[in-house]
């Protein structure tokens, strides 16, 4: 009897310990369950918030021949369906006037970049190398009997990379101020550099007849491709305009601010109307893409 009684006490202790362990396990499980459920809903909330905060681009464009005999501008806008995954790529390329094959080359550039899509947003240096290779093959084919400028942006999430060669413009309108983002690769910049380094003012550079000549472009051998080594953050209500110099010669960058209220379509219409109103007898081809960024609206 004593043995059984002893055994029974041991069993009781083991049973109590087991019960205690089960209770602790259940309590821990419930605590973890509640914690992860809360954490999960926080993550879901933050994803929801992030989605709400993501900027979406609304895009409009125009491309007109002006008073020229042919259209030497070309452009490309990547499909919007894949915006979340691949972002959007937009470009304007302007065949160099006075040279043969300007139209062929600009179309070739737009098509080649279309074939490169989707582009990796985080490989700007690689893309610039690819653009340089593209320029070298144009050089091999046309031997400087033609060339084109390139202005291209890649918007993904709330950031933008840009690439440029020549003197087409990428303009950011933000807070009532328009800024040309990409430096123009023309002889003016070389003259200004020389004069400023010798401590002089730069009036001479602006009256030099050769100041607008391009020093680099697509179709040149090993051109310098300007590109963003790290992306620029975009904000709600930013407007980005990519355009050929046929646009900015008629509507200077600074005066584009007046058109930036309202939708991208309205902005593009107003810029185009303003160019037409100038009635320039030798109006160059003009092409512009307007991108308006807004929070949480899918266009």
């Amino acid at each position: 009897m004593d043995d059984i009684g002893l055994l029974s006490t041991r069993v009781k202790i083991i049973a109590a310990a087991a019960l205690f362990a089960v209770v602790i396990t259940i309590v821990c499980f419930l605590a973890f369950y509640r914690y992860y459920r809360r954490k999960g809903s926080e993550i879901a909330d933050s994803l929801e918030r992030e989605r709400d905060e993501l900027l979406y681009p609304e895009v409009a464009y125009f491309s007109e021949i002006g008073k020229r005999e042919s259209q030497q501008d070309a452009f490309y806008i990547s499909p919007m369906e894949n915006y979340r995954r691949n972002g959007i790529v937009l470009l304007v390329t302007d065949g160099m006037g006075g040279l043969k094959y300007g139209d062929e080359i600009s179309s070739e550039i737009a098509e080649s970049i279309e074939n490169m899509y989707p582009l990796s947003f985080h490989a700007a240096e690689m893309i610039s190398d690819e653009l340089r290779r593209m320029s070298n093959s144009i050089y091999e084919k046309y031997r400087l009997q033609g060339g084109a400028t390139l202005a291209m942006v890649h918007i993904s999430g709330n950031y933008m990379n840009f690439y440029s060669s020549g003197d087409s413009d990428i303009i950011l309108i933000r807070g009532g101020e328009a800024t040309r983002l990409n430096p123009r690769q023309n002889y003016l910049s070389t003259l200004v550099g020389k004069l400023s380094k010798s401590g002089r003012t730069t009036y001479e550079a602006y009256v030099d007849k050769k100041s607008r000549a391009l020093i680099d472009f697509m179709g040149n051998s090993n051109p310098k491709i300007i590109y963003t080594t790290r992306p620029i953050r975009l904000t709600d209500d930013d407007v980005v305009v990519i355009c050929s110099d046929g646009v900015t010669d008629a509507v200077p960058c600074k005066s584009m601010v007046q058109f930036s209220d309202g939708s991208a379509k309205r902005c593009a219409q107003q810029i185009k109307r303003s160019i037409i109103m100038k009635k320039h007898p030798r109006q160059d081809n003009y092409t512009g893409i307007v991108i308006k960024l807004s929070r949480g609206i899918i266009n």
Partner: protein
Amino acid sequence: MHNGGADNYADNIFHNYIGPLLTVLICCGSNIPEGENPSFDAAGSVISAGIKKAFDDISDAVSKSIPADSEYLLMRISDKAVKIERHGSIIPYIVKGGELRVLPNGVFGLENDDRIICGSKNFYDNLSVPAILADAVTAMSCEEWMDNLICRISDSNMLSCGNLTAVNFIVRSDD
């Protein structure tokens, strides 16, 4: 450093570098009335002599030797941080997270390829924040960045705007 069409260049920049410490003093005298001709030589000699001194000691010595009412910015960049003391309108900016941000007084950590610019009010007057940012992120060198900024200022006023003073840096890791 450019006189911007003015008769004199009244600002000044002094620096001293003994790896990995770079000490820079930017002085702005162009806002002091003409005829007073402030001299920053004494402050400049503090910088050239004080490379091994602590930042606070250099700061004390500079504040004692610089002409009264002068605007200046003292900065020391070491391996992994920049320390700044700003008096007046010389603004230091850094490119972070795709934006241009003002560097606060005090110590700020640095990373490889960080881009910093410090300039006088006159220098920034014809530059927008997106312009400074765009030129910072497209430049492969400090010289290219500064050349592009000068081109932008020139487009506004042909560099006839009074003294222009700025210093820019790109942080490069040894790795």
